[in-house]
Structure formats: C-alpha cells, structure tokens
C-alpha cells in the first residue's frame, strides 16, 4: 500500500517537473529569441530536467523492480507498450503539426518557436520515459542470474549514471575530453552488461517468437523516437541554442545507447537461439522426468507405476518409437511392460537375440548398457533398426531390462544412452526405496499382529484358578516382547477331582498364540470327560497332529488331583519335570519319568511314549510347576538359573502361602538375571496342600 502511494507521488512529481520544464524552457527560449533577458535563470531547466529524470527513475524502480510476478515476456511487453504509447502520441503530434501547416524553415515567429519547443519537450519527455522503462526492464533481465561481480558492475553503472546527472545539473564549463570520456565509459560498461543474456535460455519456443516480435517493434520505436527528437532539436537549434538540448546530457545519451544495444543484442541472441530451443526444452523435460521418477516413490502405490513412469520418460526423452521393460520377478517369471510394441514383437526380438547367442543385457550377468542395433539387422520382418538395452539394478541384483527401439538405423547417440542409463539407475533406486518402505510397513504390521497375539495369549490364561479345601494354588505368567506360548489352567471335574495343566508351545508369535488356543480347547473338552492322564495325552496328540506344522510341538504336564484318595495321577509329555517338596521328610525332588512332547510322534504309536504316574500327597507338600523360561533364565555372565538353584530355593518356600511363594520365586529370578527384561516367557504354578 505504501509503495503504491509512493509510486503515485513519484508519477505526480514527474508530471509536475515536466510541466515546470516546459514553462521554464519555453520562457527562456522565447525571451532569448525575442532579445529580452530571460526572467528565469538559464540553469533552471537543466535542474528541472534532472528532477524529472530522477522521479521517473524511482517510479520505474518501484513499479518494475519490485513486481515479483512479472515474467520475461511480461517485461518485454511492458517495454513494448510504453514504446507504442510514446510513438502513437508522437505521431499524433506530427499529424497536428502537419494540419496546422508546417512553418517555413527558419521562421522566427514567436508562436512557431514556442510550438516547436513544446512538441520537442513532449517528445523528449516521452523518450526519456521510454528509456527509463527500458532501463528498468533490462536491469531485471540482466540481473536474473546474479553474480557478485555482475552486481558490483551494475551498481557502478547505476551510481555512475546518477552522478552524471549532477555533472549535467551544474553547468560546469564544457570540457570536451571529460564529456567524451564519461560517455564512453558508460557506453563500454553498458556493452559489457549487455552480454548477460542468460534469461533467453529459459524461454520456450513460443515465448521466443513473441519476444522476437516485441523486441523488433521496441527497436523500431526507439529509433523512431531518436529520429523525432533529433529532427525536432535540429529545428530549434537553427533558431536558438538556449533550450534543453539532450545532446549534451550524458545520462540520456548513455541510456539511449544502453537500451538500444541491449534490445538489439537480445533480439539477435533470441534469433540465434531459436534453432536450439528444442534441445533446451528437451533438457528441461528430462529434469522434470527425472524428478517424476524420484517422486514416484512417495506418491505411487506400486512398483508397476514406477515401471510405467520409467518407460514413458525414457521413451519421451530419446524419442524412441517403441520400448519394453522386462521385469524378472523370479527365475522363471518374466513380466513385460510394453510401449507401442506388441508382446509378440518384443518376444520375437528377445528370442532372436537369444537364439543368436548374443551376449548382451538379456543375459543376467551383463552390467553395462548395450547397443544391440547391429544384431537387429539380421531379424527379418521387424520394423525396428535400432535397439538400446539397459539393465535395472536393485541392491546390486539385476531385476530387469529396459529396451528402447527406433525404426531408424543408428538412432541412438551417446547423450541419449547416458540419459536413459541415469533414468534406469534412478528407477532402480526408486524401486529399492519402495521395497524398503514395503518392508517397513510389513514390519509395522507384524508388530501390530504381535500386539494382538499378546492380547489373545493373555486372554487365554484363566483369571481365576480352581480352589479346594485340600490345597491352595497360585500361578504367574510373564511373556517377553515377542509372544510366547506358555499356558496353564485348572478345571474341576467333580467335587473331589480337579485337573491341572501346564504347557509350553514351541515357537513364538501369532502361531504360538494360535496353538495355545487349540491346547486350551483340547484341555477343556478332554478334562471334562474324566479320562486317565496318559489317555488325555494320547488323545491330545491325536488332535494336535492335524494342526501343528512341521517342527512345532507342545510340551505339557497334566494332573488329576483326587482329594478323596489324596492321590495325584499325572502324565508328562516332554514338559519340564515336576519339582516336589515332601514336607514330612523335608525333601525336594524332581519327578524323573518318561514322556514325549505332543506333536513329536504323529502316529498311533504315541501311546508307547507316554506313561501315567501316581503319587500320594501329604499336608504341607508343595508342587512347583514351571516352564523352561525359569530354568533357562540367564544372569549377566550368561549362566543359566538351572535346576539346582530352583530346587535349592524350595526350602525358603516351606512356610509361605502359594501366592507368597510365587512372589519370592519371581523376586529371586529377577535378582538372579539382574533385569526385569527376561527375553523368554516364564510361568510358574505353585500348589500347596493343606492339612
């Protein structure tokens, strides 16, 4: 808003100074021609002219240099429009002048002198306006790509010009050599600056044509303006020399040379650049294409779209007539993406090249791009005469081949080979990134799955255990980050029979949780039926054979506690041996008996590998069940907790309730391993018999 007000102010100042110039200049001219001493000091018009120039200078500086949206053609258009307006006005004046009847040359009539001077001043104002416009516009073009050196030179030029205004303001005694020297310095600097034509390269073909036209007309207007002012001033000079003559004005003269030279240079440079424009545009398109390939990783949903972009961009970059992209998903499967060529045609060419045993990119060992054109000549019936093939690498593996075809012989040059090889490299990187991202996503999904599996596993464990007047039972289970498959449960069969199970599913993750849920189902259905522990295992094994995959098994121990007979019958299927404390003898022992884990023997003979055992319990006895996570827990030195330490700990548990005993055990375990992050699952179940 503020700069808008300033531009308006500057414009007004320009108009006012011009009017002042007209009045003072005419009055001086009139006085001198009439032989009267002028009332206005003769140096005044010079100062006013410079004020006029200054106001225009800052007006255009604000209007053109600060305008961010202007592009090159817009700038040229502005200059052209200014030139057009000034030329039209000038022509209009000429017509009026003509209509009024041209006065005789050398006529000294006062009216004629005043009228001629007025027309001259109008034209001078227009020319200076036009030149200032041109100057500001060319400044932007020259400084489009700045360097330190260029900025300094420009600053020198501009400041020098402004200082020259001072020189002109005070009518120093005219020293010819100084005048010429100053002028030539500005002309030379202007010429050097005119060498900066980098903006031309950024025009496209159409813009170049428009610019040529605009520049041509601008040059025409410039010369017309120079000619008009020249002839008008010549007319006045014949009468009097006491008027504002621009011929001695260094600023105006320098500007005239600079603006004209730059216009002509630009015109010529654009003209000579026209034939190479397509190359520049091509280069630009390559850059854009390159970017597309790199960005495709973020935006595209599949590898396939990366392939398609690669195909499109390579074809358009080298003007290929056809192309195909062969991707080897695995050793036997080849996927072919084609562009303007049928699958059959491409197959024919591949087979032809293979048949002739040509070592090229089509064999996987090749590392370099190959120009296989000479081999194509021997293929009859094909319209293609040039072929260029590129391998595509992802993480050092050749994942496919890009082949480009042309109907012309020798259709590919070195430059094209380089471009497409860059493209295919970039595509390789894009695909690699894409795969990495897929992997990361997969990982994320896996983690999510684990979370769910862990939840499932937790929900499979009972919240309440069967209690009895004859015994107390407590259980604890903790699993590592990865889900394990520890399972325990209790079930009351009738008022004097309670069954207990502890099991450990091999493996981890979702499958472990899945097998655990199967084990739970088996336990709840078989335990109901009050069958012998060994029968239980045989039947459980039979049921599991069909759902456990190769290499998976479940270890388990199953107990039936009979509170009537005070006897426990149990079967151990590969699970950690039961640790038992006899209260009466103060003796701790592991029950060493035989039994193969569930799922290891997948036929009827399993019954030979399992046995039922029986013992009698007495009040105060403690039965400790656990999973291998307990005995295999390691300390900082890598030593295992082991069976001895576990057995030795039982003495501490004698007078504790199962819940307290359990807390003690876990505390000991953490103490031993020195961390609460034990990288396995561990489960304990403690049964204590009451009196």
């Amino acid at each position, binding site marked *: 808003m503020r700069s808008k007000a300033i531009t308006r102010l500057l414009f007004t100042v320009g108009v006012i100074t011009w009017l002042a110039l007209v009045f003072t200049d005419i009055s001086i001219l009139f006085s001198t021609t009439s032989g009267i001493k002028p009332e206005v000091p003769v140096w005044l018009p010079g100062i006013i002219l410079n004020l006029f120039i200054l106001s225009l200078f800052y007006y255009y500086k604000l209007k053109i240099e600060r305008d961010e949206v202007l592009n090159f053609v817009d700038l040229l258009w502005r200059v052209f429009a200014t030139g057009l307006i000034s030329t039209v006005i000038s022509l209009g004046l000429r017509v009026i002048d003509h209509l009024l009847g041209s006065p005789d040359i050398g006529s000294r009539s006062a009216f004629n002198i005043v009228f001629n001077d007025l027309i001259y001043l109008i034209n001078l104002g227009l020319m200076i306006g036009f030149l200032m416009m041109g100057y500001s516009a060319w400044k932007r073009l020259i400084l489009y790509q700045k360097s330190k050196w260029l900025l300094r030179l420009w600053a020198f030029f501009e400041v020098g010009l402004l200082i020259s205004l001072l020189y002109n303001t005070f009518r120093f005694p005219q020293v010819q050599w100084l005048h010429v020297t100053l002028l030539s310095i500005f002309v030379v600097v202007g010429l050097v600056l005119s060498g900066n034509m980098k903006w031309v390269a950024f025009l496209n073909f159409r813009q170049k044509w428009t610019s040529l036209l605009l520049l041509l007309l601008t040059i025409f207007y410039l010369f017309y303006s120079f000619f008009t002012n020249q002839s008008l001033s010549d007319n006045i000079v014949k009468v009097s020399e006491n008027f504002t003559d621009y011929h001695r004005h260094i600023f105006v003269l320098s500007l005239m040379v600079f603006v004209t030279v730059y216009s002509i240079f630009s015109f010529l440079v654009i003209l000579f650049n026209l034939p190479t424009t397509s190359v520049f545009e091509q280069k630009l398109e390559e850059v854009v294409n390159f970017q597309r390939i790199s960005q495709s990783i973020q935006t595209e949903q599949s590898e396939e779209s990366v392939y398609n972009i690669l195909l499109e961009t390579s074809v358009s970059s080298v003007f290929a007539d056809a192309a195909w992209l062969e991707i080897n998903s695995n050793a036997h499967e080849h996927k072919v993406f084609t562009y303007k060529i049928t699958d059959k045609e491409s197959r024919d060419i591949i087979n032809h090249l293979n048949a002739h045993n040509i070592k090229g990119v089509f064999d996987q060992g090749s590392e370099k791009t190959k120009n296989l054109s000479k081999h194509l000549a021997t293929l009859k019936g094909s319209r293609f005469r040039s072929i260029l093939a590129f391998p595509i690498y992802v993480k050092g593996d050749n994942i496919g081949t890009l082949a480009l075809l042309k109907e012309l012989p020798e259709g590919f040059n070195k430059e094209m080979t380089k471009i497409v090889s860059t493209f295919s490299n970039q595509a390789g990187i894009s695909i690699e990134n894409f795969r990495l991202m897929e992997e990361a996503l997969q990982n994320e999904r896996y983690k999510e799955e684990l979370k769910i599996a862990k939840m499932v596993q937790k929900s499979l464990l009972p919240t309440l255990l069967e209690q009895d007047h004859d015994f107390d039972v407590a259980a604890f289970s903790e699993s590592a980050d990865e889900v394990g498959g520890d399972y325990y449960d209790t079930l009351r069969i009738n008022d004097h029979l309670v069954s207990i199970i502890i099991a*450990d599913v*091999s*493996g*981890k993750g979702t499958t472990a949780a899945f097998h655990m849920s199967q084990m739970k189902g088996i336990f709840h259905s078989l335990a109901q039926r009050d069958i012998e522990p060994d029968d239980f295992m045989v039947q459980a094994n039979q049921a599991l054979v069909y759902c456990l995959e*190769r*290499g*998976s*098994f479940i*270890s388990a121990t199953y107990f039936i506690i009979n509170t009537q007979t005070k006897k426990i019958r149990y079967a151990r*299927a*590969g*699970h*950690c*041996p039961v640790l038992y404390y006899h209260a009466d003898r103060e003796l701790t022992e592991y029950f060493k008996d*035989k*039994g*193969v*884990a569930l799922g*290891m*023997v*997948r*036929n009827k003979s399993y019954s030979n*590998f399992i046995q039922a055992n029986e013992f009698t319990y007495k009040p105060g006895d403690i039965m400790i069940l656990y999973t*291998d996570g307990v005995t295999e827990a390691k300390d900082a030195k890598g030593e*295992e907790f082991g069976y001895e330490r576990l057995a030795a700990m039982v003495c501490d548990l004698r007078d504790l309730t199962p819940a307290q005993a359990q807390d003690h055990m876990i505390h000991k375990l953490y103490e031993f391993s020195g961390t609460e992050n034990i990288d396995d699952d561990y489960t304990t179940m403690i049964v204590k018999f009451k009196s």
Partner: protein
Amino acid sequence: MIHIKRLQEDGADVIALVGEIDASSSIELDLAIAKSVGEGFSKILIDCSALEYISSAGLGVFMSYIEEFKDRNIKMVLFGMSDKVANTFSILGLNELLHIGKDKVQAKQIVNEL
C-alpha cells in the same frame, strides 16, 4: 549364533554344530540337514560336542525329520552332547525318538547297526 561344519567319514555325513541354536539359527541347521539329504547321504551323524545350547525351535528341526528319515531309510545319529544339552533332549522325550550315541565311535556303530 551357530557355525556348522560338514565333513564326510566312511560314507557318513558328519555335521558338526558349534555354538548355540536358537529360533533364527535353527534355519541354518534345517538347511544343513536338508542339503545332506539332498546330496543323497543315508547316514548322517550330528556332532553335538561343541553345541552349547539348543532351543525348542532347534529341537523341532530334529523332530521334523524323524518320520521322513524313517520312510526314506535315512539313519541319523547324534553324539557328543554335553549333559545340559542332553537334558534338554531328554526332557522333551526326544532321546526316545532319536538315536543318540556317546561319541563318534559309538555313533558310527549305531549307524551301521540300524
């Protein structure tokens, strides 16, 4: 980490396991046995003398071959286990399903008798 060495002795393939077998390294064990079978060996000896630890996944590998070997008449004998490793096998009951010898001499004897 597991390091697996294979060498042939008297027409038997001796696979030596050095280190620990956990869930990830059990895949290598599986590959080694599969390779031996693929090469047509009918006598496979597993040297466990340098085996420090074996997880249930590793045991699962041995277990998974039991039936296949029975069907194809391939004899596999393990030997040289430390007490700890032997205990792991016996808790699961694998000692009843696999042939386990004390040392290489005994293992060869078992393989030839089978």
